[in-house]
């Protein structure tokens, strides 16, 4: 049996990643709800990670593999969770990301809000590298994508965050402050 329990001793990275990932201002609005969801997904992920390794040769599996496997299971379960919720809402997978992004698509918002405004695939990529501090190779393995895709997503995520967190320009401020013209029609 691989030392999966040893490799999962340091859970703080997975928990920090999970809380940041799951609190999306759409389905999960506060810390308590995010904690409950992370706890449930974590339990399920760790069970599945242990089960998946049961048939493998213990010598082949390194300790770090256990950690990556736990992240991979967590990400997979969370994607499935969001997909189900999105379908329940009657929206498509991509539309969920777009609508969440649209809510915060104004310049000058805080860093946490900017990260939450990213589409799921960008958010999970950025957070697994920056918060969980997995190497690019490990992150690509955990997210089940190629290194090239990982780099492309990181680039887009970082550029979007830069755009969202920059101070709004004078034109944008003026545009936001100007009262919108009401679409009224004179009825005689």
């Amino acid at each position: 049996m691989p030392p999966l329990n040893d490799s999962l001793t340091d859970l703080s990275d997975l928990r920090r990643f999970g809380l940041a990932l799951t609190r999306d201002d759409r389905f999960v609005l506060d810390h308590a709800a995010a904690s409950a969801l992370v706890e449930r997904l974590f339990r399920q992920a760790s069970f599945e990670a242990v089960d998946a390794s049961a048939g493998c040769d213990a010598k082949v599996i390194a300790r770090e593999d256990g950690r990556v496997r736990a992240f991979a299971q967590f990400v997979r379960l969370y994607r499935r969770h969001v997909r189900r919720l999105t379908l329940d809402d009657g929206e498509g997978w991509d539309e969920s990301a777009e609508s969440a992004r649209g809510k915060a698509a104004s310049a000058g918002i805080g860093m946490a809000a900017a990260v939450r405004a990213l589409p799921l695939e960008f958010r999970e990529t950025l957070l697994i590298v920056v918060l969980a501090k997995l190497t690019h190779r490990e992150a690509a393995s955990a997210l089940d994508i190629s290194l090239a895709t990982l780099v492309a997503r990181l680039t887009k995520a970082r550029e979007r965050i830069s755009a969202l967190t920059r101070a709004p320009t004078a034109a944008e401020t003026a545009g936001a402050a100007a009262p919108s013209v009401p679409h009224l029609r004179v009825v005689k």
Partner: protein
Amino acid sequence: MEAWRLADLHAYVDDCLAPDERLAFEKQMAEDPALARRAATWRAQNSAIRSAFDGEGPRAFPISIVRHQNEIPGKGRRPASAGARPSREPSRPSLSNLDEAVRAAADVGEESAFRTLPLWRLGVAALFVGLLCLWSPPAPVFPAKRLAEAAAAGFRAFVRPDVAPVDFVSRDSGESQQWLTARLSRPVYLPTPPGAISMIGARIAPYPGAPAAFLVYRAQDGLAGLLVRPLDAPSTRAPELIAAEGRDAAVWTWRGQGFALVGDLDAQSLLKIANDLFEPAAGAAQAIPDRGS
């Protein structure tokens, strides 16, 4: 920008480059100010993201998760909810269920109003209350033995004659805390050393999974080493003395960290120092504001 250069830029920003690759990339940045500017922006962005979500880390998992993790699950064992479809809202009682429940509660109330309690039930209740008075909660589950062994191994490796035992020489606990936090890229909280010992300095020690902080103190009778590492376990009530690698070690947890104290001291002196280190730290736990929402 070329794809390979972009990949290297991300790898540099995320500290994924080998030392020689890192040097080579820094040379490229010296020749290309735009590249350097972009790297600096993204590095600052990384720091901002970490600090924006930093409050989530030091908080401990509930004890149920710690226990679940420490046990070795057998093949095929799954939680009850493993295959269940996740629901967004807790199940609400239907009107008929509610009605039945109210009726059942009313029946129980009627029965108990006219029934006398048998003597044996009173006896069981008294026994239960007595056991409650005597019962003390079980000690928290945390890998005390592993902590103690790592501390003993670190002490044996680092504290040797004619060898500097620390990388960072400082008598100030705050300075060492800052140095360790920067080196380990995560918050490290150090207890204030009591008057009986003085700090020599700090260094990084190996530990399975992630490096740990290691502090060396000078006591009257000899040197002592304190291993500190993040640990998702509830705080212990007091340090516990255990044997590891032929030495005595005092281990405890506090504020999401595990501590193991070893040294050239006898068991009683070691435990006294551990208690002195633990008590101010446990008191300070109230003073330190909890981060995050």
